[in-house]
């Protein structure tokens, strides 16, 4: 299959990454190479095979529903780009 420029723009939008036309063109050329590599997968018959998500057949563990972490707001917010009064600041969402 061949990717189109619109596929790159759509993926970039879904991934929330700004991309201009020059970058999109360059990315398209590289992704084309990668997808022709990935395309080798289509040659194999996979009917009847169970998908494998993990190497070990894990059962998710359950834990008690209780508080284990204390409030560390100041410490955690110290790496935030912009905060005020203990809140994370972002551009206005609701007019």
């Amino acid at each position, binding site marked *: 299959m061949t990717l189109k420029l619109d596929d790159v723009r759509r993926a970039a939008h*879904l991934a929330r990454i700004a991309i201009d036309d020059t970058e999109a063109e360059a990315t398209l050329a590289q992704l084309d190479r990668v997808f022709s590599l990935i395309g080798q997968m289509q040659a194999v018959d996979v009917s009847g095979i169970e998908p494998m998500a993990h190497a070990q057949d894990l059962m998710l563990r359950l834990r008690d529903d209780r508080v284990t972490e204390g409030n560390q707001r100041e410490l955690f917010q110290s790496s935030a780009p912009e905060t005020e009064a203990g809140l994370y600041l972002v551009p206005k969402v609701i007019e």
Partner: protein
Amino acid sequence: MLVAAPSAMSITTLQQIANRLAAGECSSVEVTQDYINKINELNKSLGCYITIDAERSLTQARAADARRAAGKAGALTGVPLAHKDIFCAKGWLTTCGSKMLGNFVAPYDAHVVERCDTEGMVTLGKTNMDEFAMGSSNETSHFGPVRNPWDVTRVPGGSSGGSAAAVAAGLAPAATGTDTGGSIRQPAALTGICGLKPTYGLVSRYGMIAFASSLDQAGPMAHTAADLGLLLNVMAGHDPRDSTSLQRPAEDYNRDLEKPLKGLRIGLPREFFGDGMSADVRRATDAAIAEYQKLGAQPVEVSLPNMGLSVPVYYVLAPAEASSNLSRFDGVRYGHRAAEYGDLLDMYKRSRAGGFGAEVKRRILIGTYVLSHGYYDAYYIRAQKLRRLIAQDFAQAFKACDVIMGPTSPTTAFRLGEKSADPVQMYLSDIYTIAVNLAGLPGMSIPCGFGEGGLPVGLQIVGNYFDEARMLNVAHQYQLATDWHRRAPRGVTA
């Protein structure tokens, strides 16, 4: 000046440092200061470390000396090591090689860091790496490339390139690394050191910045197999904060080091010995197998028929998981935020466009595409099915052999810039290592000779699930009979 010729200069092992500390021949402060001096002398030209903090290291060393004086020292108390900058370490800048986390000071410790600290080990610094562990040459780091101590015009491999080069150049006796598709084994091979990727689930991923969660696994990097075991003893263990951390009894991974290899069945997969590998890598690999035969092991031909699909399968699954994991970097709670933006969507887009480098963005786009509506079954589900076929190939092979051997990397260290223009060429550097991650098996690389230009060659040893002790035994017996692991780049070891 660093040159490419191998020499027989000595290396310093974790075991040697531990012995000297235990015998009272030196203090942790002295050992740590020696390493800090070497780092100050050589880090500028090699780029191994992103962050060093001598005062912090020496504080840990003083505490270790006090603990020893109080008679409470463990096996590695006071012994220094370096941590890959993918591990959160409280109070340390933790960048993951990215501009996105250029100012991120970790507010907590990764499980691995916590285990090393509890043992009383000293953190020398945080090592350079490919951005978010996505790369095979360490060239995608925002903080500049790492140079291979054997030849500074060449890459050290990646993504744990800083850890590998630091150990090879004597700027740390050992280091932690992580391996999603070969990121411990390939740089270990290219820099002439040892590296072990444990069975998936053995070492906790808590506090290890996530790339592809079903494949990521942390492991030790050091000069000898015995040192890998010592460090793995510290790193491994159950952690309820990682839902994939396995609950298993603690074990001493060095318990079988001295076992003779007579009767060991070494599986040689046909697919590992095809046309892909360069002539010098083949010569060194064949010679290592011959050495194993002298030690009493028997080669057995095995086959991994679906191994050829491991690179395509990996480049669906790993980017898919990465696109999801890296969605947390939004410029709100931590990380880079663009200087100028309009609304919230625009802020996300510009912050992520500016904070991530080209390779990371490429992989996020691949992952987003293969997970998007209409393509999920054709790519993601198909890749997961093929993953099972690849794992089944290994299960079949292990019916006929105890360990599998082959090359770690198809070539020795390549030149800086040589593969950066073509992502697919770079991806193929991991052709022998990726299948092991997909199957979740343990794999390691040990030095087995030198190729053209005096560049190190690594031998890959793959074990069955939870067979780390046997793999370390197999590697240790080889290291008793050979001295490839004792070679250091000329002029680097002080």
